[in-house]
């Protein structure tokens, strides 16, 4: 038995961290814009996984063999489905409560989350039981310096990296991104500069949802088992990652997610039960020392 900090664990940790990062981004963006902890966000991830599942069987029947195209269509479908559900949740559940006390939206978010979980369990085509996720891209393993790396590791990390870089460019460079930053800082002032604030909020939900959808697909491929409650645990972990990095802060969410992914993997290598708990321990420690999270700025806002 070697050290738990070997190359294999680092690779595994980065892989888990990538999936957490994609989910955590949605949490942090939505919080940044509307100061809402969207507890249904983990369920958007679950929807992405199911959409990918359905899309694979749909497209594979007609385009069987063209793995690349099918995989791309499946990714698009999972992002579109989760993005659409996120938009809908915003429109139907959160928007009417926008200027009501914060607690109402928070409870509503829990309601939306439970609704999605139970509704999908009750749907005859989905059902409450586990489904095994198809192998969208054939799995191959290569050995690099003692670590076994499957192509899935590469795919997970690469897809997450591409999406995160695109998001960063969008937020930093585009006028839409600047409008998002303006809205997150001062909604009334943004409105009075002619910014359609509701449109920006919808767009934020759309992107956040789509990213969670992509994470759902990646997780489905990597741990090929999906079920309607699969979003609870990763959703919670991603939320912790977002808080760890400083909620509302985009690089913070990514940093938090990779810290969590690595810490969990190292701890699990030592003892799998510690692995489950370590993220919570880290969260408590960090919040004790830096209540705003690692990269969070001081704010007068209270949740």
């Amino acid at each position, binding site marked *: 038995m070697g050290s738990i900090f070997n190359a294999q664990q680092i690779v595994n940790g980065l892989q888990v961290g990538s999936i957490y990062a994609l989910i955590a981004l949605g949490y942090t963006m939505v919080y940044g814009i509307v100061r809402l902890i969207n507890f249904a966000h983990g369920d958007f991830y679950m929807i992405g996984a199911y959409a990918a599942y359905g899309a694979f069987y749909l497209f594979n029947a007609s385009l069987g063999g063209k793995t690349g195209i099918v995989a791309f269509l499946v990714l698009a479908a999972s992002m579109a489905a989760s993005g659409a559900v996120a938009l809908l949740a915003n429109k139907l559940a959160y928007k009417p409560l926008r200027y009501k006390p914060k607690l109402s939206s928070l409870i509503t978010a829990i309601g939306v989350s439970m609704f999605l979980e139970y509704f999908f369990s009750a749907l005859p085509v989905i059902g409450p039981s586990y489904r095994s996720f198809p192998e969208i891209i054939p799995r191959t393993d290569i050995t690099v310096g003692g670590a076994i790396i499957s192509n899935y590791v590469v795919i997970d990390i690469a897809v997450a990296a591409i999406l995160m870089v695109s998001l960063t460019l*969008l937020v930093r460079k*585009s*006028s*839409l991104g*600047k*409008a998002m*930053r*303006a809205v997150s*800082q*001062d909604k*009334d*002032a*943004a*409105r*009075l*500069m*002619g*910014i*359609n*604030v509701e*449109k920006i909020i919808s*767009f934020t939900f759309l992107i956040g949802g789509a990213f969670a959808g992509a994470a759902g697909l990646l997780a489905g491929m990597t741990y090929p088992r999906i079920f309607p409650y699969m979003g609870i645990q990763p959703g919670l972990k991603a939320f912790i990652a977002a808080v760890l990095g400083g909620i509302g802060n985009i690089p913070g969410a990514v940093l938090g997610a990779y810290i969590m992914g690595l810490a969990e993997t190292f701890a699990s290598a030592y003892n799998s039960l510690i692995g489950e708990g370590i993220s919570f321990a880290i969260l408590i420690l960090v919040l004790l020392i830096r209540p705003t999270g690692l990269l969070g700025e001081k704010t007068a806002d209270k949740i």
Partner: protein
Amino acid sequence: MPALMTIQGMTHYFGGLRAVSNFGCAIQEGSIYGLIGPNGSGKTTIFNLITGIYKPTEGKILFDERDITAEKPYKIVQGGVARTFQNLRIFSNLTALDNIRIARQSSEKSSLASSILRTPGFLGEEKRIRKESLDLLDLMHLSDRAGEMAKNLPYGELRRLEIARALATNPKLILLDEPAAGMNPKEVEDLMSLIQRVRDQFKVTVFLIEHHMKVVMGICEYIKVIDFGETIAEGLPTVVGKDPKVLEAYLGKRGA
């Protein structure tokens, strides 16, 4: 000539408190109109009502021959009403240039799709917007601050940046909420000539809330005085300045 903005019988309640009572005005195009009154007399509430942040309990706001009483704030801005704030509300995490640019861009209607796909038409437009924004900064003597984060600018410059940002939305009417607040006498002088220059150069109408009597009396062409939400005097600066009710509201009742 019809007024650019007419407000009729506007009343607004916060719960049981009547913040604005039967407010009316007709603001002529190209004029500088002043609204004064002691603290808490409802001045900023009137601005919030005009810009759609609050909806009046009663009354009607006509702007540019259109009823804007029930319109959404961003539509009102796109229709030609811009404002600044009493306590600066600059986007401090954006650069000075981006503060202007975002206002310029939002007041125009480029589609979401074209801004994401960056179509050639959009890129040309982007260039034009950048140029216009830089011109505005130049006018406010802020050119050398374009790339600076707004949070690093000193107070006086932020005030000017906020006026530039309001102008960037291409307004017909600009609402200035206590622009001279916190300024020293020299800055006040500069501000007065700036407001006049802005009016002439951009052909905008100015609606001004101010405490600073020198500013109000110096540049306003018509003044309305309110106290506890009610209009207590109005007219030309020279007349209003001598009105006993105005003096009382500001200085208290004169003892025997």
